[in-house]
């Protein structure tokens, strides 16, 4: 590595070398192994693994539910972030701390807890059942778990931006006679949009890859509520089918990388907005 070390501080080789060593053995080498295994299959072999009805159904569910969940998170997250930043009310700090729950709660624990709540004999499930709404062991359950894990990403991305935003623009709009709807949709939302989209992308990435929170409430019914990560585990665990797992893993990895690129682009956009602001 060619160091253009402008700094006079010591430790460049040690710190960078160690960082690269860890990243190499823990991230790069495994990443290369996955790509290698997936490439070895060739396009036809890859399609033979991916093109089955079961795999395609799981991919459709994983991506479809994740897209919908991230959209719901964007709406609910905007509301929660807005209220936490702009209003003062009792227990605000405690509710603010609770937003981090899906970050810190083990996914398996969240999974069985949601299942217990929404199962036909659960607190909420038993009340929803007479209304004809089934959540546990259906796609609605998959969606619910994804909404749960994604929400803090939107809230925590929006909060610092909302905090630093001056209210002078809104006040100017107000003095010009804008209604509160106009102020929200024509002044605030355009300003918040890049940040909101970053939060959306983060929530989406998490929802696509989520395993623990989803599998319990999903019930994993063939063709109906099997998510793609569940199929990967099935292929490894019970069929020792590493090539099939790698083929599916490559699809998930490609979606992660795509989202990362989108987020890097969004961040550039946000910075440009910051200059305008």
């Amino acid at each position, binding site marked *: *590595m060619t160091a253009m070390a402008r700094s006079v*501080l010591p*430790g*460049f080789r040690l710190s960078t070398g160690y*960082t690269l060593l860890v990243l190499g053995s823990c991230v790069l080498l495994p990443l290369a*192994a996955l790509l290698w295994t997936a490439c070895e299959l060739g396009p036809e072999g890859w399609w033979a693994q991916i093109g089955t009805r079961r795999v395609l159904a799981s991919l459709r569910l994983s991506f479809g539910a994740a897209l919908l969940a991230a959209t719901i998170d964007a709406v609910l997250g905007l509301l929660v972030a807005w209220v936490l930043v702009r209003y003062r009310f009792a227990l605000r700090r405690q509710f603010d701390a*609770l937003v981090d729950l899906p970050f810190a709660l083990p996914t398996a624990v969240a999974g069985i807890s949601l299942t217990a709540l929404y199962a036909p004999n659960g607190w909420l499930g038993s009340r929803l059942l007479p209304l004809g709404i089934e959540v546990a062991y259906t796609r609605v359950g998959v969606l619910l778990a994804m909404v749960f894990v994604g929400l803090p990403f939107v809230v925590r991305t929006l909060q610092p931006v909302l905090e630093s935003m001056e209210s002078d623009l809104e006040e100017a709009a107000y*003095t010009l006679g804008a209604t509160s709807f106009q102020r929200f949709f024509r002044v605030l939302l355009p300003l918040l949009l890049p940040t909101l989209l970053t939060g959306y992308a983060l929530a989406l990435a998490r929802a696509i890859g989520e395993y623990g929170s989803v599998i319990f409430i999903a019930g994993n019914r063939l063709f109906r509520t099997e998510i793609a990560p569940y199929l990967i585990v099935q292929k490894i665990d019970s069929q020792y089918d590493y090539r099939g797992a*790698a083929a599916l893993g490559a699809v998930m990895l490609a979606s992660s990388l795509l989202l990362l690129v989108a987020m890097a682009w969004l961040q550039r956009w946000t910075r440009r907005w910051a200059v305008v602001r």
Partner: protein
Amino acid sequence: MAAVAAVVSIGQPARTTHVARVVLVLGALVVLGWLMVLPLLAIFAEALQHGLAFYLHAIREPDTLGAVRLTLTVAAIAVPLNMVFGLAAAWSMAYFEFRGKAWLGALIDLPFSISPVVCGMMLILVYGKNGWLGSWLEAHGLQVIFALPGLVLATVLVTLPYVARELIPLMQAQGSDQEEAALTLGASGWQIFFRVTLPRVRWALLQGVLLCNARAMGEFGAVYVVSGHLRGITNTLPLQVDQLSQENFSAAFAVASLLALLTVFTLAIKRLVKWRHGGEWNAND
């Protein structure tokens, strides 16, 4: 400001804004209550529904105690490793300019966006029996997958960015003036690190380590794949919860409540640190 306030009350009846405000706050509280409070309460309610005696019996099962021990062991190895990694990465990223730095930053963040299940599978492809290093490891009598090293490796991979991500923005914002001053006063590299840098970033470091630890002890997907979930041998607490949930839901919740307590404790400490020392860093969480 006073003028604007006057305009507000003249131009629009104060009651409508008040109503809108109450509706918005209630809406947010309903969302948080429904998505966050209810699941958290449900864990403890389910765990204690057969009484305290059953609860204590469930968490004293030999397999559960073994899982507690294994979880603590894995975290005790993985978290310090990630702490050292985070400090090294932050030192390199914050104080030096070099080619490929943006790529290095992206690589550090990468494990956040990869599915834990895919993380575990990638490790099997390298360190498993038929993996790239499989035969070499076997020849040297080392078992990684389905054993403790695999659990540690998977945990390290999944929690890799936590400490680094907390430290890099902070150290970049603080700059290296104080470190350079120490250098001109004749301090060695390690002296600078321990006496200048470390005290400056300690609260952010604590935040990162706390979250890293919570995630390490609760990791499920990646560990599930590499562990083979052998009961009493490679079952960590979350894996034990999973297996118990197929047999005895209440016992599963008793074990889960231990992890939930860890979560509540982590979030409380994190808030406390941020509340008391939040001014010392401006990096958001």
